[in-house]
């Protein structure tokens, strides 16, 4: 019984990290139709930003979160404005362009700070552990769980209860109609992309104390995040949450049962089968023929 609960709690912790990492990708993919292959690099930038703030400015992780969000969001804004907005109606080219941008970011970081692994300290206030359902869990993981849910809530409110969110949804429905109502699609897109990038940066900063930081750390994250989004369904924030936690529980289970290679192969095959048979994701109702 204890082991079962432990498994569940581990799954929740993995799921909350997946949610953190996938949220930004989900927003961008769902609203702009762009598969942002530079997403992993935004995560990486966030992690390095945490390291820089800590090492050079002596700023703790929690204090750095807001500036990190802003810095990475600014990166996203620039990339949307000067790269992606030039690629209207060329979806294949957007994934190529974002991939190229990803390479550049990765390489630039490598040239500037080297490819050594970097480490970020846990916030001292959260470095102990607490008991969840009788299982000792590190306080930081509980904190991540809470933050991921909070960020999801904030994002949901942003999309559904604010003017920017409403404009965005109008543009998703029909860009030309939205434009005729005076909605500036360009600006809204740039803001959306920046927000998604900022979320990725936050995710990177938040996971940095758990894993080492390196220039190529993003690659793994972008695959995970993509998996979450595909499973959850494009344009469905709630689906993203559900799939993040389902995958969290599953990957806990699979890693427990199998070796790593098999787990990876299964995940990839699952993506393939899912795209083929349910490209709209598991948690969205089928709409339109």
């Amino acid at each position, binding site marked *: 019984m204890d082991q079962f609960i432990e498994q569940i709690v581990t799954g929740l912790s993995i799921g909350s990290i997946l949610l953190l990492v996938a949220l930004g990708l989900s927003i961008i993919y769902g609203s702009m139709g762009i598969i942002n292959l530079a997403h992993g690099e935004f995560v990486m930038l966030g992690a390095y930003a945490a390291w820089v703030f800590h090492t050079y400015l002596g700023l703790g992780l929690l204090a750095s979160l807001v500036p990190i969000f802003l810095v990475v969001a600014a990166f996203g804004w620039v990339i949307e404005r000067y790269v992606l907005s030039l690629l209207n109606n060329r979806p294949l080219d957007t994934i190529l362009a974002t991939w190229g941008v990803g*390479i550049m970011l990765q390489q630039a970081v490598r040239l500037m700070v080297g490819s050594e692994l970097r480490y970020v300290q846990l916030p001292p206030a959260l470095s102990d552990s607490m008991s969840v359902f009788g299982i000792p869990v590190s306080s930081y993981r509980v904190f991540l769980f809470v933050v991921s849910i909070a960020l999801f809530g904030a994002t949901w409110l942003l999309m559904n209860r604010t003017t920017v969110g409403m404009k965005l949804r109008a543009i998703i429905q029909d860009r030309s109609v939205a434009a005729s109502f005076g909605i500036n699609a360009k600006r809204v897109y740039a803001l959306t992309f920046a927000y998604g990038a900022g979320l990725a940066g936050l995710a990177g900063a938040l996971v940095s104390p758990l894993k080492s930081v390196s220039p190529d750390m993003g690659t793994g994250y972008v695959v995970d995040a993509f998996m979450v989004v595909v499973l959850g369904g494009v344009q469905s924030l709630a689906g993203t949450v559900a799939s993040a936690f389902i995958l969290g529980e599953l990957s806990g289970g699979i890693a427990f049962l199998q070796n790593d290679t098999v787990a990876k192969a299964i995940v990839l095959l699952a*993506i393939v089968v899912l795209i*083929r048979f349910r*490209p709209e994701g598991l948690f969205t109702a089928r709409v339109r023929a």
Partner: protein
Amino acid sequence: MPSHVPHSSGLQRLIAQLAPLLIVCAVVFALPVLLNNDFLLNKVARYLVLGILTVSLGLSWGFGGILNLGQAMSFGLGSYAMAMALKLKTVPVHTGASGLPDFMVWNNVQHLPWFWEPFRSLSFAIAAGLIVPALVAAALGWFMFRGRVTGVYVSIITLATMVVINLVIIDQQSYTGGFNGITDLAQLEIFGVAFDAYGRATYYLVAGCVLLSLLVAFAFTRTKAGLIVQAIRDHESRVRYFGYDVALYQIFVFALSAAIAGLAGMLYTVVMEFASPTFLGVQLSLSVVVWCAVGGRQSLVGAFLGAVLVAGMQGALSESAAFLETWTLVMGALFVLVVLFLPKGLAGLAQVVLRWIVQRRHAAGRGVAQGVGQTEGST
């Protein structure tokens, strides 16, 4: 009737389109005369092989609109087919007449696995190097295109499939040589000609295959089927309403492209003298996309040159790690710029420049004979 302005005839147009291809191949064949250095020649042969691989991607991406991010899968399968045959040729030397490849011995494998058996025949291996990639691609194509998977999703499925096969190869060390690949190979020998990786024969073999694959790919694009494939790229559903089974055409071009990539893979094993899981790795597969985009995805010769030039440049710079790192950054930037501003790559740019020159000459000539040329102007 105004329609009897002499349109350039089919034959003339054919010659004009073939000219760049033939010129490039002539240079490839002439290179050993200028380059009297076996080591360098081997390097060039390597880039030529990568050029063939990139042509194969150009065929499916540039003409068929199928962005296969797992193109290296077919390349790797071809390269393993060749390596398995060449490995078995070393068996009597290393482990006795009825022995096993060395890495199997190390892994305590008792018998040669059934799927290795037929590779004792070189002809079988060469056929397999073409047919296996084509069949795998056809099966994957059937899975995707029958389900009307398009665009970005095709890219993701192809990439994921390649990674799965790569993982399996690395995982099944006792049958595949795992992470190390298959090394210590015998020399390829066909009709008594030995193909030493650093010999002239190998270079000309590669050059011959460059010519062959460019011609095959070109010939396909000139058939009606090739035209229909391009129509599918432009507007998939429209093609359907003319009665063409779109999926079959996509499967065909996908498989043809895989067979060409398989050929390149076999040659790569001969030139490199080993096969490795990196040959069907993400890194190589994505590099091919870059080369193809830079050279020009809708031009076979462009794609070929893109690979040879960019990979060659990279090879030249790889002597110094610092250079290579900067180069990767520059490549990333170049790639983004090409995607943004030159969707047809350098070949597209060359076309624009050529047309501009021709038009200027035309205009100069027309100054004399004003008013005649009204009906012309189509290029």
